[in-house]
């Protein structure tokens, strides 16, 4: 009898833990469903083609309300692309430095230091973008102000770097020592080994790191809200003032009357954001798993 009661208790406890485990799936699905159900009513009034392909976003216009997100999408991609252009080479270089060049004591100190960079809150990075990076950019490019896509890219690069560095370094370290030893035994220098053996072997991990950094950059809100100038125009260059999707939502969510087309449209932007970051994460996942399987 005692055993049956104990079994019941065990089963109950297991059920409890199971529920907690499944919670993650429930939350993800919940977010997705909420976005979808709140976004769909927008399309009663907005044509899907206009939403996705029109460059003009002006829901409160006295002339004609416009709901095109193309400019925002391109702005997001531009700022993210610029960030990756900066962060990927530097990130891989730092990862290579930490795994191959640095003395292990130096590495023990520098790894946490890089993690410190990851800990700086986004609003502080944005603040530094306004007070520090903006004036520098204005001086270098003679633009009069530093509130543009370039500023956003630089800041996002700084925020994506720790992710890229950390995962790339892990992947470089995970290259089997047999590979390195073989290469060195054949007479290659450490540099040649790094370039021709380790980097290619760790490539999938590095790609995954890049994608995760990209996801982080796409989803960043406060930093870009503070430094990119928030102009609604379709961007023509990095020195233009741009508005990303995340800023677009943050700017208008506070003032929008509930349950209007404008309100639903903002959630539609959120849905697009969710889908993009989900896709990026999925690809990173697949790449990471392929690389893990190969190691086994």
């Amino acid at each position, binding site marked *: 009898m005692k055993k049956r009661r104990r079994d019941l208790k065990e089963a109950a406890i297991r059920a409890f833990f199971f529920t907690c485990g499944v919670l993650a799936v429930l939350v993800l699905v919940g977010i997705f469903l909420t976005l979808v159900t709140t976004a769909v009513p927008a399309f009663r009034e907005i044509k899907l083609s206009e939403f996705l392909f029109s460059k003009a976003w*002006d829901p409160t216009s*006295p002339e004609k309300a416009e709901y095109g997100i193309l400019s925002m999408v391109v702005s997001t991609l531009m700022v993210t692309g610029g960030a990756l252009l900066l962060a990927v080479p530097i990130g891989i270089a730092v990862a290579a430095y930490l795994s191959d060049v640095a003395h292990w004591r130096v590495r023990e100190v520098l790894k946490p230091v890089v993690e410190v960079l990851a800990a700086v809150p986004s609003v502080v990075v944005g603040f530094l973008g306004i007070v520090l990076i903006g*004036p520098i950019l204005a001086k270098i490019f003679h633009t009069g*102000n530093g509130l543009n896509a370039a500023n956003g890219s630089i800041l996002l690069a700084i925020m994506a770097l720790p992710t890229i560095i950390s995962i790339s370094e892990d992947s470089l370290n995970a290259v089997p020592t047999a590979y390195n030893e073989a290469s060195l035994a054949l007479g290659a220098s450490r540099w040649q080994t790094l370039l021709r053996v380790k980097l290619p072997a760790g490539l999938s991990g590095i790609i995954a790191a890049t994608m995760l950094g990209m996801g982080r950059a796409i989803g960043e809100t406060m930093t870009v809200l503070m430094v990119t100038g*928030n*102009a609604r125009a379709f961007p023509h260059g990095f020195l233009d003032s741009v508005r990303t999707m995340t800023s677009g939502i943050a*700017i*208008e969510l506070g*003032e929008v009357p*509930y349950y209007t087309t404008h309100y639903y449209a903002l959630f539609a932007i959120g849905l697009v954001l969710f889908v993009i970051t989900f896709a990026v994460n999925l690809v990173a996942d697949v790449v990471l798993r392929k690389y893990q399987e190969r190691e086994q």
Partner: protein
Amino acid sequence: MKKIAIIALAALALFGSILPAAPARKMIQVKGSDTMVNLVQILAEEYMGKTPGAAIAVLGGGSGTGITGLINQTCDVANSSREWKPKEIDQAWEKGISPRFFVVAVDGLSVVVNEKNPLEQLTVAQVGALYRGDVKSWKAVGGFDKAVSLYGRQSNSGTYVFMQEFVLGNKNYSADMKEMNGNAQIIEGILQDEGAVGYVGVGYVHDQSGKIRKGLKVLKVSKEPDGTGFLPTDKAAVDSGAYPLSRPLYMATNGKPKADVAQFLAWIVGPEGQSIVEREGFFTVGEGKYRAANDKNFK
């Protein structure tokens, strides 16, 4: 595990002891205009200093946010630097809200440029052309040879809407306008940008000593192409309407304001509140039509 729990409980106890023995009264929630947020926050601070038991929370977000807040009943008072749109009034009625408006200050919306800009005056039409994006170089309006760099607010701003209605002729803003998060950010941008132009509430152009901010120039605005231009800092011009961009600043309540809200509003439009309004660089309500309308709304 236990240690964390103990620390957490201790922290809660510590905070519990710091919290003031607050009265049972709930806080008056004031939301809305960024143009007014600093003014109202200072008014609230001084009012609370003089009135024991008063509790006022001031949130910003832009005039649009305040209006939405009053309609959705998430605030008691909505600050707006513009009138409500007919659509908004309809929405309010639909939800059973009957907005009542009190003019608490008058603003001379200022057109500001960098001090290096040689211009001294523009007509309303010219300002509109600049902001619609019809004119892209300062030379076209008689200034120097530089590209126009537009600074403005976002669509939740009453100032944005007011400009759109009265200066842009209800047309779209140029998509190249940089939409800043607040009046202060506009000023900051202009100080560093020689080709810049921006619009801000008159309370934002002065520095702490009451003089115009160094590096900033406030333009005179005239109604007609050959008319006399006036400065928004000219009280007589603002009061008489000679300055074309003067506008009342409103605080709206749902129907007749409750006792504590009414007391606060009455103080604001009274001599003490109005002297603070003046001190902060805005203009007083005066003795004319605004005061009459206010008095009626208190009843």
